[in-house]
């Protein structure tokens, strides 16, 4: 075994975007990148996905916003963010300097919001792709999440694609009966890739006070508890669509990441693990590299989607 051997870790995540390695950060768990500069060499990451951005700043939900559960956590941050203007002014320049591909995660209340955000971001230098968070309520249509209706998924995807020349990644909600249906809807709408999963909707109660543990009552479940569900959905989706699939959900280490890659993910995103160990992303890059060296692979592509069913 030649441990010094160079491994080709590059991976295509759609729309012509090639990452130097498959390890991305998950939106909302890595701030705007800078927050992790003490712990991670940001140059070593495949891409940084920033906290979800809306047209206007949002202050989010009242506290308590987070609660720990067995093997996971619930969050009801409420999509707090600085808004696109402040993001471009205060946050993007730092990331642009780093040079690692920046993926901007966007969210909105209506098709128009998404379209407008896509248009604004299209003119900006230093943005490699747009990731569309469709797990938000469509305020104009009764508050049902965009991501649970294939028609709306198609429409959001089209609306964003129409306004941008950047690769568009549609981030799918796992709170659906059949994720391959929404994945295909995104593909039909012109998505360059899909990423999944966003959080599962969950809840926790303090039985003594008989109150919800989150002010928002319900929140999003993330962390290792959801990994089996995420992996299953990634595997199903990778078989159902032709565009690249980015795997997310409960990835804590390189072994977990490899499971997603073997299941068919072209890249992975790391979320909750950043809170547990702020250096997780870099460690996962190292761990994948080591595994490939040890298994005699030359390139990451040799393992993607190689799950053997007997």
């Amino acid at each position: 075994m030649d441990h010094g051997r160079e491994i080709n870790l590059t991976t295509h995540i759609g729309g012509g975007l090639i990452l130097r390695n498959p390890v991305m950060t998950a939106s909302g768990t890595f701030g705007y990148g800078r927050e992790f500069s003490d712990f991670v060499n940001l140059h070593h990451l495949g891409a940084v996905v920033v906290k979800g951005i809306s047209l206007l700043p949002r202050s989010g939900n009242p506290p308590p916003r987070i609660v720990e559960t067995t093997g996971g956590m619930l969050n009801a941050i409420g999509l707090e963010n600085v808004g696109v203007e402040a993001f471009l002014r205060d946050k993007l320049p730092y990331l642009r300097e780093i040079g690692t591909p920046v993926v901007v995660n966007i969210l909105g209340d209506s098709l128009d919001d998404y379209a407008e955000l896509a248009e604004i971001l299209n003119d900006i230098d230093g943005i490699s792709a747009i990731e569309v968070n469709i797990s938000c309520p469509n305020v104009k249509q009764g508050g049902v999440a965009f991501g649970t209706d294939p028609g709306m998924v198609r429409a959001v995807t089209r609306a964003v694609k129409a306004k941008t020349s950047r690769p568009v990644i549609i981030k799918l909600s796992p709170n659906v009966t059949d994720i391959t249906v929404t994945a295909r809807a995104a593909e039909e709408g012109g998505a360059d890739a899909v990423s999944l999963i966003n959080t599962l909707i969950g809840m926790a109660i303090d039985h003594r006070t008989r109150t919800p543990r989150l002010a928002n009552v319900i929140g999003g479940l993330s962390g290792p508890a959801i990994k089996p569900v995420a992996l299953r959905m990634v595997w199903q989706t990778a078989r159902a669509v032709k565009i690249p699939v980015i795997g997310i959900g409960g990835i804590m280490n390189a072994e977990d990441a490899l499971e997603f890659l073997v299941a068919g993910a072209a890249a992975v995103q790391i979320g909750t693990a950043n809170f547990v160990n702020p250096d997780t992303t870099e460690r996962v890059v190292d761990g994948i590299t080591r595994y490939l060296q040890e298994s005699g692979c030359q390139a990451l592509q040799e393992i993607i989607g190689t799950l053997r069913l007997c």
Partner: protein
Amino acid sequence: MTAHQLKSEIVRKEQLAKDIIRLTLAAPEIAVRAIPGQFMMLKATDKMEPLLRRPFSIHQATSNGLVQILFKVVGAGSKFLADREQGDILDIVGPLGHGFDLPDDPSANLCLVGGGMGCAPLYFLTKRLLTNRLEGSLQLYLGATTAKELAVVKEDFENLGVKVFAATDDGSLGYHGFVTDLVAESLDKELRWQFYSCGPHPMMNKVARFCAAEKWPCQVSLETMMACGISACLGCTVRSSPAKLISSNKQFLHVCKDGPVFDSGDVAWTTAER
């Protein structure tokens, strides 16, 4: 601000009371930078449960590269830490957050009020205040449920040459009642005081109201649930006070970044959300 993630050796473990532990950790990078009121996030398991790190105030940071935490066992995370022994390695991240602002004026009269484990950061603060050659008076109040919880730390403060006004809920040491009542009864109201407080939320709420009434500045160290401690998760919010909302246009503040130490006038003292 630079923070560090370190594998830190426990160089000393002290069992101060039944459920109260003090750990001394070798963490030069943190010790050299730490400011009183700042905290660290400690990994409180070698498995996935509890999943998240746990925040603990820096109880002391010494020039020879050591930091201390003083904590009470309240659940799985603190239990794990309490079960570690000298020589064990802990994974720690720090120093984090915005600490106490030290007085510019060396003649300021300072009043420190700690309740329960709130005494932890106040010890570091007291030491730092004393090194800044103080002319004004420094008054220290510590409250606890019972003598056993207070005795050891009281002595530590006294060894710094500071008189401790003690209050216990059961009267087993010092004043019988709330430390805040002791403050109200015994503090010289003719002077102008700068308050520093850390302890249970209702206690700090009382301190804050008291100071607001007297128009004294007051800094409080708040606690919330934290997932990251490094301003990435946005989970550690407290509501801004109406005044702060107007001045900053921010509805919420983040304890791990804007705090844990705040001007008491900046935060909304609603208890409903806690």
